[in-house]
């Protein structure tokens, strides 16, 4: 009986241990590979220590990709948050139309992002695409949506927003529906207006939910690949080559494995740091929201 009691704690941690090993093993191996000059042309490589990271950081292409990645992630996360919260506020009034819209709203989330990008690629096609067709009466039928650097980046962000705004809206709506009724009733009795109530009650209490959505969307947008690759392949020029695409090109298309993995490790570090900061911020906001509720 004694040995069972001694062993039980260890047995209980076995699943977590296996899971941790399953995560850490490929990660560690990837990290280890970045210390070599491993590529298709050099299958038995030499140890180069941190040279790959040095090469990554001195590449102009890296800084361009890093800048594009940040622009994309901030733009997409910001637009999705604003639109998502707005949609949630509209749907919060539980009318029949609202309930129907709620069902429709979730549709983009059921489509694979790469498919969404292909659909939008066809819709944005300048000569036969439906977007230009609809804009033609307003004299805007000749827009080359993805042929200019700014257009390509904005179009990619727009597709991301189309796919993921419902995700933010659903989270925000769940948050709205879980807020206590009494502070709002008290505000109504005091004759507070909609804007005042929104600013002083709804938003502070809703922030924790919104921030969870922001964390998910910001981290995902930093790691974007499918939408941009299907829509623009990273072009025109290098204007939409985000870090993930650069890593893919290096590791898969050009077969410089170590160099490609180095890019992903750098991206991982960026995502990790961003997540740490946001999660720390989330804790503070949750405490503030609790104060408002009480």
């Amino acid at each position, binding site marked *: 009986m004694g040995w069972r009691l*001694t062993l039980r704690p260890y047995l209980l941690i076995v699943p977590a241990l296996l899971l941790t*090993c399953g995560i850490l*093993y490929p990660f560690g191996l990837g990290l280890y590979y970045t210390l070599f000059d491993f590529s*298709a042309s050099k299958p038995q490589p030499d140890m180069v220590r941190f040279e790959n990271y040095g090469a990554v950081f001195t590449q102009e292409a890296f800084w361009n990709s890093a800048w594009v990645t940040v622009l994309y992630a901030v733009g997409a996360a910001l637009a999705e948050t604003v639109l998502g919260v707005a949609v949630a506020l509209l749907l919060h009034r539980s009318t029949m139309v609202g309930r129907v819209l709620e069902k429709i709203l979730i549709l983009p989330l059921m489509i694979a992002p790469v498919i969404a990008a292909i659909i939008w690629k066809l819709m944005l*096609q300048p000569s036969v695409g439906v977007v230009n067709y609809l804009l033609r009466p307003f004299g805007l039928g000749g827009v080359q949506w993805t*042929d200019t650097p700014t257009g390509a980046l904005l179009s990619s962000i727009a597709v991301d927003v189309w796919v993921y705004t419902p995700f933010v809206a659903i989270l925000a709506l769940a948050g709205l529906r879980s807020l206590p009724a009494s502070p709002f009733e008290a505000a109504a009795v005091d004759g507070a207006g909609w804007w005042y109530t929104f600013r002083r009650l709804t938003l502070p209490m809703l922030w924790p939910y919104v921030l969870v959505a922001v964390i998910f969307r910001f981290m995902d947008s930093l790691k974007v690949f499918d939408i941009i690759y299907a829509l623009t392949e990273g*072009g*025109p*020029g290098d204007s939409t080559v985000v870090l993930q695409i650069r890593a893919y090109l290096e590791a898969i*298309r050009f077969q410089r494995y170590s160099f490609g993995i180095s890019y992903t490790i750098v991206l991982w570090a960026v995502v990790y740091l961003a997540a740490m900061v946001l999660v720390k911020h989330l804790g503070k906001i949750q405490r503030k929201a609790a104060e408002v509720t009480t």
Partner: protein
Amino acid sequence: MDTHVHDRRRFLALAAGAAAAPMLTACGAGFGGNDDKSDGSAADDVTGSFDWKREKGTTVKALLNKHPYTDALIADLKSFTEKTGIKVEYDVFPEDNYFDKLTVDLSSGRASYDVFMLGAYMVWQYGPPNWLEDLGPWMRNSSATGAEWDQADFFPNLLQADQWSLKAGAPLGQGGQYALPWGWETNVVAYNTEVFRKLGVKPADTFDELTELAGTIKRKAPGAGFDGMYGIAVRGSRSWATIHPGFMTMYARNGLKDFTVDGGKLTPAMNSPEAVAFTEDWARMVKRGGPPSWTSYTWYQCSSDLGAKKAGMLFDADTAAYFQAVKGASPASGKIAFHPGPKGPGGSLATNMWIWSLGMNAKSKKKSASWLFLQWATGKEHLRKSAITHNHIDPVRKSVADDAAYKDKMRHLPGFLETFETVVDQTKIQFTPQAQFFDATTSWASALQEIYGGKGAKSVLDGLADDLAGKVG
């Protein structure tokens, strides 16, 4: 209590050790799997008289790209199985992700596929890491290769295009035979005869004329009843595939080189004054008469625009136009003609080519059966049948190109045979063979997009050359 803590520490240390062991083992085993290559070719194991039934009962796995040539192969596979008793299992992937699938599969060091389609450029990438079987010893072994396979029947430039010494900058036609030509494409101009007749224009003989003509069609064709038609379809996506058809053909006809080779050292030459001027001219032509949304254009869009009467001309593979010209294939079928395209300043018709080749996985465990498949797929009987009864055109074999039934089939396409015969002797791979081909050409396509977008050609191409110099040198 102390013992408990001690036990926990020991347990954690053991667990960490157990977790680290496979990692260290994997690292020690090297990268990318086992590399137990033998010095001798497996072809040497085949002895005795040649026999198609030698590997009866074996199954060969093939990786194929979605293509009309593939359709012709699949339609005839039953003949191969009847002839050899070998079954062929295959996977077909669209071109957008075909090469990624093949690259990942080959680099894994496994033999998931015994045979596969590849282009000659891929030999430059897959050859140096020893992923491709050298087919030379198989071709030379009369026990492995039937006399009717007739190596001399291939167009020599095609067979040589799949031969390389694996040294950067070394010319093709030397070293191992890493694939066999199976179907190919020459890059020429195809045009819509209806719009040419209505506008009273004729095919261009110089590049300036082509630019002018493309602009004229874009300006005048919509008013002549061709709603939304533009001048010339050329590829523009941010991919290596944008560089090799029309662009590289016209580049070569201007006597320009991608790299200069001196003592085995490669120097990028796409920023020479002449190359800069040509690239500016190309971008100007696309702006004046090219497709809207050019930066996303692959051969699929170019080809379908010609067929849909959206493009007046196509400067790309002759097959890309042929598939639209076939009776009933598109609204433009019956109205598509072929022309060699503009000559270079000295009258050059140097043309870049693409070869769909068939190769064998160096790690295959069924090399003898795989060789029988490659031999059959590139043999006279199958290729003749595919060319005549299917759409496997641009024969790699002289006997098929000269076959009366093939010529009868192709004769109804205005200018096809004449164009083919005019450029065939000057068609070859115009790139310098080197392992960084895909990086170089993808970056080149990106540079082309930037120039099209308004950036200065000189500075963009200087930047490209600087970047490539460090990679290919």
